[in-house]
């Protein structure tokens, strides 16, 4: 049954892409949940994570990556990018958002847009590094090849029409444990409790002795780190990165967060999987050039019938 194979293929692609989007979307939804900010810089943070990963790889030299050394490199990149993005997100919050805690939400949003522009520009400069991985840095703005550390062989055998590759395995092996770990942090630890309390009512949380600034900082740290993980698996999955990729990725992830109900982590994952699937199905069965239109059309329709997203709870305003 050829069409079954074809459909399964789209399912796999869609879900894998969806899981990558989900990691980024969680970063949006966590920050939104706690300070009600659409963190515009988050997508660009993700982009810088990919540039860092490539730089780390370049520092080891562009050898012939295979077998164990490739997997070791993947682990190193994951740790480096996660740490970098976490720290960077924390820093952006300190410098650009924290001074505006009491300002209007729109000022905060403009500050985030400003931060986003700065990060994009840093990405452009980064691409100009005179390293082999950046093709000598001559054409700074050009997309960069990301070495195929993870092979594209079909795990289901060469005869199978359905492609299931180590890349897909990588995506799931990274994202699922991260999501389980995050759920554990949020539901079981003191920090998680403090995060939920701060999200619900920052003033009351502060009165109860919670250091809300630290909690917000931790939220940015965790959200950023997830973006860093996502940037590495995205780069290994797609093998090309560009300083402009933060916009597209951020847009998808933010759409996912809203679709699922912004502020809700299961919602962000659900929304991301829906978007991943809609994208791959639309690419395969309709036309690629209409995919964006279809994604946003579905978003609008869902929001008309469920104004708080798929899993969002409609908060009743206190009157």
């Amino acid at each position, binding site marked *: 049954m050829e069409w079954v194979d074809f459909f399964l293929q789209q399912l796999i692609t869609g879900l894998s892409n969806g899981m990558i989007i989900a990691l980024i979307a969680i970063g949006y939804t966590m920050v939104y949940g706690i300070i009600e900010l659409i963190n515009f810089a988050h997508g660009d943070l993700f982009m810088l994570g990919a540039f860092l990963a490539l730089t780390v790889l370049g520092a080891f030299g562009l050898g012939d990556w295979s077998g164990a050394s490739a997997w070791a490199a993947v682990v190193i990149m994951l740790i480096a990018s996660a740490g970098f993005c976490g720290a960077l997100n924390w820093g952006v919050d300190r410098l650009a958002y924290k001074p505006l805690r009491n300002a209007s939400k729109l000022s905060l949003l403009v500050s985030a847009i400003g931060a986003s522009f700065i990060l994009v520009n840093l990405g452009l400069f980064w691409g100009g590094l005179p390293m082999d991985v950046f093709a000598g840095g001559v054409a700074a703005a050009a997309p960069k090849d990301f070495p195929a550390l993870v092979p594209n062989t079909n795990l289901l055998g060469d005869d199978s029409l359905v492609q299931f590759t180590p890349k897909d395995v990588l995506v799931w092996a990274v994202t699922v444990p991260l999501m389980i770990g995050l759920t554990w942090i949020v539901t079981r630890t003191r920090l998680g409790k403090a995060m939920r309390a701060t999200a619900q009512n920052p003033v009351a949380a502060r009165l109860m002795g919670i250091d809300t600034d630290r909690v917000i900082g931790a939220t940015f740290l965790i959200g950023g780190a997830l973006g860093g993980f996502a940037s590495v698996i995205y780069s290994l999955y797609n093998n090309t990165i560009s300083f402009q990729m933060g916009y597209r990725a951020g847009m998808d992830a933010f759409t996912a967060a809203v679709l699922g109900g912004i502020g809700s982590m299961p919602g962000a994952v659900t929304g991301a999987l829906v978007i991943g699937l809609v994208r791959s199905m639309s690419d395969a069965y309709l036309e690629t050039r209409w995919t964006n239109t279809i994604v946003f059309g579905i978003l609008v*329709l869902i929001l*008309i*019938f469920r104004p708080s997203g798929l899993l969002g709870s409609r908060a*009743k305003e206190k*009157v």
Partner: protein
Amino acid sequence: MSLLEVRGITMRFGGLTAVDDVSFNVDQGQIFAVIGPNGAGKTTLFNAITGVYEPTEGSVRFRGSPVRLEPDARLGLRAAMVAILAGLSAFLAINIQELWSVGIAANYVLNQPFPWGKAAGDALDAARAVPFAWGVLPAILGAGVGAGTVVALWQRSRRTPDLIARAGLARTFQNIRLFTDLSLVENVLVGMDSRMRSGFWTNLLRLPSFSRERTWTEREALELLEFVGLSERAHEAAGSLPYGHRRRLEIARALASKPAVLLLDEPAAGMNPSEVVDLMELIRRVRDRGVTVILIEHHMKLVMGISDRIVVLQYGKLIGQGTPAEIRADRRCVEAYLGTEGEG
């Protein structure tokens, strides 16, 4: 028939029943008080009456009618129009390229008169030739989604606060909600909106009726500020008012729509004794204007002093109603409320 009839109102939030099967009637010209301990469901009841919440069960009748949109011809017309528009859009979204090429591009020659009739005919022929799956089917789907959207959105807005305000029920809020960046006059003018007639074009083009309306509305807004004693600060920002005055401005804003019923949610909260006396006086004067007043209040002196009728809520249930004297004599009510919290 009473002016306002509350019949079996129940409000549930998840597992919590905030208001449980509450019924009462309010007559024209009364000052009517709702009392009860904190968390008894008084404000929730107000929200259910004024359309902020949709009651889980029960109904509110004002002058004998449930203030609520009923399905009518206009809804049908709107659904039909949107359906046609959405269906046509879906059809065109898929086929416009083809129709444009056949109808317009193929017939147009620069600097020659354009054969409109032929173009339309060609485009129509092309439209008829579109296969079912790419023509009629998307059009039907589009029309269905369009009509469904209209009905879904209408369903959600059948009993909204603005509808109820326009019917003649005005309110104030427990935690005062003024338009703080607008001046006092402008706050009152917003309250007067339902009585204004000038539309977008009148305002944009400054037609004669614009200045006529501006004259009488501004005069009346100043009169209302005078009535609550704030006319001296008419052009200051509402946000600059001291707390005690804010309540008064809220009352003036609510009165601006010439309501039949005014609902006051804890008007005396945070006031000192002399301000409370002034407030009682103000509420009486509001009643004397012919406005029926319903108030939530903890301040027993005020409630007992001015109310014609009182209902007592506890844990969302109505446990007693009557005149102030009757409530004082009712042991259950006294125990529930007066005994523990009453201040004389």
